[in-house]
């Protein structure tokens, strides 16, 4: 039995968000898009709603972590450049 359509839409939306985030990943040798695709493909046949929700939660978690990574990177760079006296190092 295929999963309901609303899961499909949610999955596509999450995938698109993550894909866009991956474009700006700072380390070019890290295969963000490959990992992203494989992670989604691994879960393509999930049917148990609980497992599906857990997979979504993991996706959201990765999204938030990536966002945090980006903003922290920028913030650290700014602080190093413009507030060196506050830098703990």
């Amino acid at each position: 039995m295929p999963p309901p359509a609303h899961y499909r839409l949610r999955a596509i939306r999450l995938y698109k968000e993550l894909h866009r985030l991956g474009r700006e990943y700072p380390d070019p040798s890290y295969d963000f898009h490959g990992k992203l695709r494989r992670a989604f493909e691994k879960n393509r046949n999930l049917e148990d709603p609980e497992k599906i929700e857990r997979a979504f939660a993991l996706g959201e978690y990765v999204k938030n972590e990536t966002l945090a990574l980006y903003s922290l990177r920028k913030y650290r760079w700014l602080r190093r450049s413009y507030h060196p006296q506050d830098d703990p190092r």
Partner: protein
Amino acid sequence: MRPTPANLLRVLVPIKRCVDYAVKIRVNPSQTGIDTNVKHSMNPFDEIAVEEALRLRERHKDLIKSIKVLTIGPPKSQETLRTALAMGADEAIHVETPADAPHGEPLGIAKAIAAVIAREKDGVDIVIMGKQAIDGDEGQTGQMVAGLMGWGQATFASSVTVNEGGTLNVNTEIDGGAEEVKVRMPAVITTDLRLNTPRYASLPNIMKAKKKPLTKVTPEELGVDLKPILETIKVTEPPKRVGGGKVENVDELVAKLKEAGIV
């Protein structure tokens, strides 16, 4: 000019398109400037400014009537405006300069911003902008806008609160501490690093931003001349760091130090 009633504040956020912070800056072979054929993004301090305008609106629901973003730059600056619109600004104004025009200087840019403010039919109550851009690092434009308009200014803000009766309380960063100033609107605020953490525009918002209004004007229509006053003679890279050397023993070290005139 009297400030509009407190429930109808209009915010203008001038932003700048800069070379991305993560890009290694290189001088072009003819030594006239830097290589601009690299990734660009919004000046991080201006991101903070956009975020602060949005947060003011979130904090005081009905207080802020509109948030407009403004940029002065080549056609590609439009991407930067779209980014700001995707973050949540309502409208954008693009003062378009030719793609090959030299980099604007603070005074010219400030005059252009002042001209845009003068053109706004409903006026502007708060101008929030980054304290400096990460490319030129001049840090003068905000102050110049305040000077040209004859408005109050609160520079290097680390927190902003709107009071009843058309004033703002702003905590500003000064050398070795903080200062709290009260400024009557209309006013110019320049943002410092600690003010907030800018949000990242979500995909649906990026799509919505494509439909938000964007007005284009030329510097000629505004009656401002953006030609640089300063002449750039030469741009060079900083000297390469030379590696240190190892010494075999103490005598050699002392000899080297004497040679350098330290002991």
